[in-house]
């Protein structure tokens, strides 16, 4: 029996025998087989070999998975967690990523550091300015007389207390607004956690934010004119 010279069809016969050819190629092979006895004979052999395929025992997948070495990642901690918020866990199951993996993570996420710093700067700005925005908002809505000057006292670096002088203007309620600012809220351990470059970038972004009021500490009575004095008006 002469052999077939159609190499393309012969190459497809194992997949044809296994029923894995797409319809278009399957039809092409079928057309060839209709007129090629050597290929039909070859196909019979391949089908017989396929049917004689040994049947392996069922594998214990769970046992195999349990034996696998685990990837050296630090558990659920996200790779893009900014440094001040990063959890340093010391559990037995925690793994320290290798330098190679850290480098790979950095390569795969080129904007990770930048976005983290941006997020941190945004949170810091929002928290610190959020309280001040109350002051700004109330300043515009407060209708105290010009003689009712309010003093804003910074008690310490963590709290800002505004005390209203007496007598109070009609219709206003004296309150003490306590606004916490970033250093006491955010879990920043040390500013030294940041490199000089990071600090510079952080300050630059804060400076560039044009909505932030001046952050000069107020240790005594306001020096501005009474009409622009700050009054924190509380109300319930």
């Amino acid at each position, binding site marked *: 029996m002469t052999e077939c010279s159609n190499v393309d069809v012969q190459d497809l016969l194992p997949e044809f025998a*296994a029923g*894995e050819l797409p319809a278009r190629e399957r039809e092409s092979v079928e057309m060839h087989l209709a007129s090629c006895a050597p290929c039909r004979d070859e196909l019979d052999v391949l089908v*017989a070999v396929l*049917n*004689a395929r*040994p049947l392996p025992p069922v594998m214990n997948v769970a046992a*195999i*998975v349990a034996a696998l070495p685990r*990837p050296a990642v630090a558990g659920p901690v996200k790779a893009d967690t900014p440094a001040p918020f990063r959890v340093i866990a010391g559990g037995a199951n925690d793994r320290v990523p290798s330098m190679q993996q850290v480098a790979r993570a950095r390569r795969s996420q080129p904007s990770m550091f930048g976005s983290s710093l941006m997020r941190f700067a945004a949170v810091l700005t929002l928290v610190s300015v959020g309280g001040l925005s109350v002051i700004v908002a109330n300043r515009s809505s407060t209708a105290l007389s010009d003689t009712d000057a309010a003093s804003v006292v910074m008690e310490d670096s963590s709290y800002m207390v505004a005390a209203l002088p007496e007598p109070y203007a009609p219709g206003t309620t004296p309150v003490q607004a306590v606004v916490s600012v970033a250093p006491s809220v955010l879990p920043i351990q040390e500013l030294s956690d940041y490199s000089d470059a990071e600090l510079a970038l952080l300050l630059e972004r804060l400076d560039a934010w044009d909505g932030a009021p001046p952050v000069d500490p107020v240790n005594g009575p306001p020096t501005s004119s009474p009409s622009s004095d700050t009054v924190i008006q509380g109300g319930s």
Partner: protein
Amino acid sequence: MTEADRTKDAAVDQQLLERWHAGDERAATAIVERHATALARFALSLGVRDDLDELVQDTFVRAFAALDSFRADSSLRTWLFTIERRLVLDRRRAARRQPDIVEVMPEDAATGFHALDNMVASETEERVRNALTRLSPMQRDVFTLRVQEGRAYKDIAEILGTTEGAARVHYHNALRAVKEWIHD
């Protein structure tokens, strides 16, 4: 398996590996489920009969310990087959160094087909298995990888450490021989 199927398979494996790297345990289970049976079958075709579970497990452990060296231009299954075959060869070499252990040569490995449940195998299947035992180890490995595992010549060359052209020659020689022996 067509080229499109191989590409799709490779993409699925790649996604699973990425999930595994991210700490997803289920990805490892999916990977093992996808390839364990094929690895066991390939081991049988290599003549392995004892400690099949252990061999397949060792293959996965070796592979997962060296995932950094896995190249994406090769399919995961091809890579796993390569590792498994090396493990089999290592075991045979180790067995040769230990005179107390029965030496298992590649030629002997084929006798595993003969030992398989002849009682339940059909006459044709038995004839095929007997024919496969008469092939050279390289011919048998190429032929079973091509026909029973659907691997492309490129993959076979990588698994067996040969060239694509040589794999084609071994396949056609094996096919011709098996055809002749089956019809004897």
